């Protein structure tokens, strides 16, 4: 029965797994310094297979018998028509049961590997399930992983744990691919844990740093809170649906029935799923682990903590949209969590001096954007398709531009002798031209500079939220969310370019650790940077306004019906103004050649003159914006460090304190043990006698 | 209860006799306090030093072995008496089975005995 589609699906996880096994066994002993080769090869293979899935398997998986249902709508060529009657939303059922709205209905392609277990009423198959959303994620994950692996082969060169690093990375890609390919919630949970585990191993890669070991543990413990939510959600799903398969659980017709009967249950399931997603995607208030996770090697930050693993939460919510559409409450919470996170993280990022931390908070903030988009569907079910499409679109573009930013930051770190404090270097533009230009591309895309990737995806998200303010019962709420989104957009542009100017402009200074002649990215580092930078610039333009992306993702089975997606020109102009404003603001404060604390005599350039003219403005900004912002940022930081962190620590302390209270009983004396045993018997007898007395 | 009444009387008389005798000997008996007579009696040993001295572990080993064989003898006694009584004993169909079980029991005891002997449990020094 094996055919090319099955082989392609199997290759996607199998190749990285094989590479991981190689790195974990053979490469530990021999060929240590070339441990990256099998990994790069395997990831390339996975990428090819993912591309095959994207272009052949998914478009080819159509429902067999369109004729039986042809009376509903005349069939148009696939993906050309976006116009669908909104009334069909509720009746959208698995493709086999209903007819067609536009072109052949797509179903998920499922490769059943084997029956994993059959426990009582619960049957779980290990399947590899591919649909449009999966295919997009797979291509993104494997593409970014491949580039990061190539980058890391040079970046990690000479590291003591070189094979260990690549082994863990390949294991991560395997787990992530399996998470995306999962066909039921149990599979999701297993690989949800597995990616967390790989993340733990990779954050703690430099275990000799106590901070790295602590960060790894923190990430793990915080994530367990989210896992608790996911696990409980799966219990409830199993209890409610009697199955954990996507095909059964996410059946819209059945969900609609159930939602009418038990709305509270659906909301509970959705909120528990959200708790899982909050943990994995570092949303407020569980976002505290992500900035600390920057202790890991930078390629790891780029891959796991920017592009792939942290987006798993967004993916989970997008995947379970059929559940969420029936619970406006849960969606409002999603939007609220997203907006809060976006703003809090953006404000915190304003004052960071650690380049990677700026990017980490920025990641948290952008993930907040995606949640915001997903939650916007609360206003009207008609928005669900847009919300899901654009959240996933931002996920894709964000993966590209955040990966390039992280890798460029890694390149800076590499050149600066592992110094990442922006106060200790500046003016790197001449010394590191490749890094500079690629970082600039990423920064512009992140800031939402017109026509770049971030512009398209972020604009669409704001447009979705705008639509949410126009319909439904929650107009005020969504106006608030929109305001937060716009403000965050301004702040994003500002802090991104603050980091950019602090790093690449100003007087040329290197820390002592860098030596005298810092070298720019080696070819193995430069090529991934260029490719990702190019994508950060053009991906949005190619996929966004042309609707290629939107049309493709509509092939996902059970995808909500889309209303026509118009360009929201007003929102575009507004976000452009905000992006440019943020960049300009950053420029006027940090773009000067001289820095107050480092005013050494250097020949002045254009920057100096402009900033001289803007001196008054500078002070005004300082008084009106920078100072309050700094205060607010400090407050956020304080909340983060002193309160949320402490809460996390305190939760961790409860078992220790409780254990310490029981411990004195354990005194090593046989007689006291026997006494306690006897006491136990007496208590049991007393309670049982009391129970008997109360019953009879 | 009537049947037990005789036993109660018997018990009362018994205890009373003991107590009466003890009191009588104390009162009537002659008392000559010499050093030897005042010495506590301890199974023929001179009561020198602390009474709580640790005994050689061999005492315990022998005591345990004695106890085991003693208890097992007690187990065999009712079997020997009751098993082959004919009426009211072990049913005829089972008599050979029970006999076999007893042989296994003896065999196990013999193994234990050989083990103990070989391990030098019976050697005092």
């Amino acid at each position: 029965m094996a055919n090319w589609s099955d082989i392609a699906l199997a290759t996607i996880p199998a190749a990285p797994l094989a590479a991981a096994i190689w790195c974990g066994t053979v490469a530990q002993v021999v060929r240590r310094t070339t441990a990256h080769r099998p990994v790069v090869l395997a990831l390339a293979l996975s990428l090819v297979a993912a591309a095959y899935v994207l272009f052949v398997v998914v478009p080819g998986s159509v429902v067999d018998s369109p004729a039986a249902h042809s009376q509903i709508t005349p069939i148009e060529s696939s993906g050309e028509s976006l116009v669908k009657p909104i009334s069909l939303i509720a009746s959208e059922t698995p493709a086999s049961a209903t007819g067609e709205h536009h072109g052949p209905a797509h179903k998920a392609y499922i490769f059943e590997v084997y029956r994993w277990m059959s426990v009582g009423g619960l049957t779980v198959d290990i399947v590899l399930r591919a649909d449009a959303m999966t295919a997009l994620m797979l291509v993104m994950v494997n593409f970014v992983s491949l580039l990061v692996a190539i980058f890391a082969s040079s970046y990690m060169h000479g590291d003591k744990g070189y094979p260990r690093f690549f082994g863990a990375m390949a294991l991560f890609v395997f787990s992530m691919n399996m998470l995306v390919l999962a066909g039921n919630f149990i599979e999701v949970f297993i690989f949800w844990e597995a990616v967390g585990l790989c993340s733990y191993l990779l954050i703690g890669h430099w275990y000799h740093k106590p901070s790295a070991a602590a960060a790894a543990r923190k990430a793990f413990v915080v994530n367990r809170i989210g896992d608790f939510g996911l696990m409980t959600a799966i219990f409830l799903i199993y209890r409610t649906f009697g199955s954990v398969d996507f095909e059964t659980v996410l059946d819209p017709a059945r969900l609609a029935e159930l939602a009418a009967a038990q709305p509270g249950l659906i909301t509970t399931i959705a909120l528990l799923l959200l708790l899982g997603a909050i943990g994995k995607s570092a949303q407020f208030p569980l976002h505290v682990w992500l900035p600390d996770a920057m202790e890991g090697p930078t390629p790891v930050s780029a891959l796991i903590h920017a592009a792939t693993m942290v987006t798993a939460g967004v993916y989970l919510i997008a995947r379970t949209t059929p559940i969420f559409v029936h619970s406006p409450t849960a969606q409002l919470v999603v939007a609220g969590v997203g907006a809060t996170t976006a703003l809090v993280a953006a404000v915190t990022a304003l004052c960071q001096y650690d380049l990677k931390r700026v990017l980490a908070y920025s990641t948290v903030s952008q993930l907040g954007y995606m949640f915001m988009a997903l939650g916007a569907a609360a206003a009207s079910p008609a928005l669900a398709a847009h919300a899901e499409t654009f959240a996933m679109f931002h996920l894709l573009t964000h993966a590209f531009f955040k990966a390039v930013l992280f890798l460029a930051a890694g390149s800076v770190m590499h050149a600066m002798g592992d110094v990442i404090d922006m106060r200790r270097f500046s003016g790197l533009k001449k010394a590191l031209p490749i890094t500079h230009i690629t970082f600039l591309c990423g920064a512009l895309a992140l800031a939402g500079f017109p026509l770049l990737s971030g512009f398209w995806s972020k604009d669409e998200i704001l447009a979705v939220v705008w639509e949410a303010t126009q319909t439904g019962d929650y107009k005020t709420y969504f106006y608030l969310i929109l305001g937060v989104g716009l403000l965050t957009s301004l702040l994003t542009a500002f802090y991104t370019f603050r980091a950019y100017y602090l790093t690449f402009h100003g007087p040329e200074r290197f820390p002592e650790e860098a030596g005298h002649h810092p070298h720019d990215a080696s070819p193995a580092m430069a090529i991934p940077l260029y490719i990702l930078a190019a994508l950060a610039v053009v991906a949005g333009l190619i996929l966004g306004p042309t609707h290629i992306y939107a049309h493709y993702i509509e092939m996902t089975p059970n995808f909500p019906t889309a209303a026509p997606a118009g360009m929201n020109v007003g929102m575009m102009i507004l976000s452009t103004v905000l992006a440019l404003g943020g960049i300009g603001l950053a420029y006027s404060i940090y773009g000067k050649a001289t820095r107050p604390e480092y005013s050494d005599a250097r020949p002045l350039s254009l920057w100096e003159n402009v900033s001289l003219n803007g001196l008054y403005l500078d002070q005004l900004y300082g008084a009106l914006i920078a100072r309050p912002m700094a205060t607010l940022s400090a407050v956020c930081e304080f909340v983060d460090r002193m309160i949320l962190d402490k809460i996390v620590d305190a939760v961790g302390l409860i078992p220790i304190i409780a254990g310490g209270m029981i411990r004195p009983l354990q005194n090593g004396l046989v007689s006291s043990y026997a006494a306690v045993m006897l006491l136990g018997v007496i208590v049991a007898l007393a309670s049982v006698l009391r129970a008997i007395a109360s019953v009879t | 209860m009537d049947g037990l009444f005789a036993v109660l009387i018997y018990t009362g008389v018994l205890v009373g006799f003991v107590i009466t005798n003890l009191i009588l000997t104390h009162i009537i008996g002659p008392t000559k306090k010499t050093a030897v007579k005042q010495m506590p009696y301890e199974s023929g040993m001179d009561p020198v030093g602390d009474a709580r001295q640790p005994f050689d572990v061999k005492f315990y080993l022998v005591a345990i072995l004695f106890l085991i064989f003693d208890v097992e003898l007690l187990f065999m006694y009712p079997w020997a008496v009751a098993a082959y009584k004919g009426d009211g004993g072990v049913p005829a169909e089972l008599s050979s089975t029970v006999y076999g079980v007893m042989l296994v029991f003896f065999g196990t005891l013999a193994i234990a005995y050989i083990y103990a002997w070989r391990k030098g449990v019976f050697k005092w020094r």
Partner: protein
Amino acid sequence: MSQPDAAMISSVTSAAGKVIPELVLLGTVCINFLVGPFLVTPSGRALPGLRHRWGGIAIAAICTALYLWWTGSTEVVTTGPFRVDNIVWYVRGVMLIAALLLVLVNWSQIEDGKAAESHACLLAITAGVNLVALANDLTTLFLALELISIPTYLFLFLPRKDAATQEAGVKYFLLSVFSSAIMLYGFSLIYGMAGTTDLPAIQTALANSNQTPVLAILGMVFVVAGLAFRLTAVPFHFYAPDVFQGSAASGAALLSFVPKLAGFIALIRLLEPVVDAAPGLLLADVMLPMLWWLSVITMFVGNFLGILQNDLRRMLAYSGVAHVGYMLVGLNVGHHTTSVPDGIEALLFYLAVYGLMTIGAFAVLIAAERDNKPLETLDQLAGLHRVRPGLALMLMVFMFSLAGMPPTAGFLAKLNLFFAAWAQGDVSNRWLALFMVINAAMGSWYYLRVVGAMYLREPLDEHHGSHAPAPIIASVACTAMVITLFFVPTWLWTMVQTVRSS
């Protein structure tokens, strides 16, 4: 004396035929005790390498028993002193395989002069566990439990002669006797109520009695308390960390699994007839809250105290306590529901998996020993992956399995229990499921500390330790099974379901 009927007579005469695998084991025990002393000098000196011979004989005996088990008849017999059903079949399989692993674990832990006795004790314990499952009578049950206890004292005492081992042995002995006495008192109360020691007859007597069986309920409380000692359920667990710490690693491995297996099987055997037969389910109303509390307290205390430990064996002892808490959930859910998956099924599955992972963990600790000195603290594992990468990998698998993380059988075992507790639908059982999730999260903390010490720290020295093959074989076998059971769990699950369908 009333004349027994023919069925009863034949059940007695054919009793020996039902326990042939156990007879093989006990026969080997006799041979060991008979021949063993003649191969050593009276002062206890022996030819070097004698332990290989005794180990080989033990393995041969267990393999014979395994063969007899596999080919033996599966006819169900419910009368007479022994009851043969699918639970017996399952327990025999699990225990014989565990015994095989324990012989390997014990192989290098014992000196040549004491190998005969040590392996004989192991075989006797194995036979005892099987007899617990076979017992159809309170007397048989008690004797079988003592057949486990008494050789266990010896087994703990034999390997080493230092004060710590002796203290551990005596501690276990005294408290074990105490718990046996409590249990026996419970048996006597049940006997007093029912007038018979035959389990099916007790069931009938309870079903026919028209008044509240207060005596039997009190008896059950004592019995559960006595068995809770074997399970190391709180507050009967206190000996476990001290004894685990003091005894040799093979003794700890044995204690961590075998008494728990025996205890749970005895509880299943006792609770099924007694609780199910209770008129108006009064017994269930009374016993279940007790088991519920026992389970909750046990898992929380086990994990709370586990977090604080730096000593590996103490940590594993508390880990065992916590796992007993999880398994009690299965018992709690199991016998008053018809929902699938059944709690008892999940418990039986968990028991097998728990045995593999805990014996495997001890096997690795033994394989990593240096100069025959047991590993004690967590620090001694530091950087193990640099010195012995294979052992570190295997220990990581066991730690993940104990923590209930994929891709290990421990994950599935926990999942089954979660589902059993959750699907049963009772609010109190849902709480149990939630407590389990919380505890699993807490437990992962200290299991991860072990993984962290092995992988994220520098070795203290470059000492490679011994390369004795036996414990390595045992740990490789356990690892393979723990991983395999994750990917293809169906066969074991099918066995478990067969057990319940009888």
